[in-house]
């Protein structure tokens, strides 16, 4: 199954939800566009994680990546 699904706006939403900590760390470790967000927006203990990225926008079930 793909890690990403397209929403109605054509943007990529993560398919693994909000608790897929290890996987989003792996994705972020390979992502050249990762930028850590402000410290009060961080949710993961591992800094390099999609969940901590400035370009993620939370949705009801997961997040959209604004750089995909």
């Amino acid at each position, binding site marked *: 199954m793909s890690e990403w699904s397209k929403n109605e706006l054509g*943007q990529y939403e993560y398919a693994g939800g909000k608790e897929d900590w290890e996987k989003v760390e792996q994705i972020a470790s390979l992502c050249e566009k990762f930028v850590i967000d*402000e*410290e*009060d927006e961080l*949710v993961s*203990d591992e800094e390099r994680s999609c969940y901590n990225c400035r370009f993620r*926008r939370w*949705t*009801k079930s997961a*997040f959209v990546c604004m750089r995909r």
Partner: protein
Amino acid sequence: MKIFVGIDDSRRLDGGGAGEIVSLLTRTIDEKGWGKSAIPSRHRLYPHPDTGYRKHNTARSFSAEVKEQYMEELIDYACVMIKSNGTSDSNSGLAIAVPERMDNTDELIDYAYRTKETMINSDEALAMAKKPGLYIFELSGNGKGIIGALAAVGLRMTGNDGQFRGKLQLGTGEGYIATVKEIIEKSHIEQVKNMDFENLGTEESVRMGEKVKVVLLDHQYTLMVFPTDRQHPRWQTSTTNMLRIF
């Protein structure tokens, strides 16, 4: 008089800054002698699709004791600063509540809690702003920034929501062990709670983690901890991951 200020998170996509903007505003209030500000807090809101795809579902807030004669100057300054940090597609908003002028704070608090659970439209925020003691400013875009700004004010007013900006530094930093008594005496922390929301006694020992964040509970600066499963120290400061509920 006491005021609560809420600012919608309207940062540029690749810019930083919502937290920095609110910190700058609190510093300005203090430096210009308009009053004394408390530490800003970040509040999570409902991730509505319209907001989720473009911006963060968070808003910032702080409380302050300000001299009444400086209110107009403060508002003008805040509006200009927030506008100048936005972009053409941002929907920024500012909200200010003056509790002593409000008939009823319960309606605002109810509104604020609902913004965490469901979608609220700007008409509802505008209707709230007609009530005495509430002032809102649509600063850019479609005006939806007032929804989050007003929510942040209400959530801060509850005294039980949000995470404070900045990190707590105590002793030698990470690994330092302090009693609850020392933590309270040597920092702005007012209480220490475990993740079951039970208060720790003053003689309990806590190991400070790498990034120590403070949350707002019971209207107090609150340090959250979890058990180490050891005799000493029995507690460790909660991690970023654990604190994501705030």
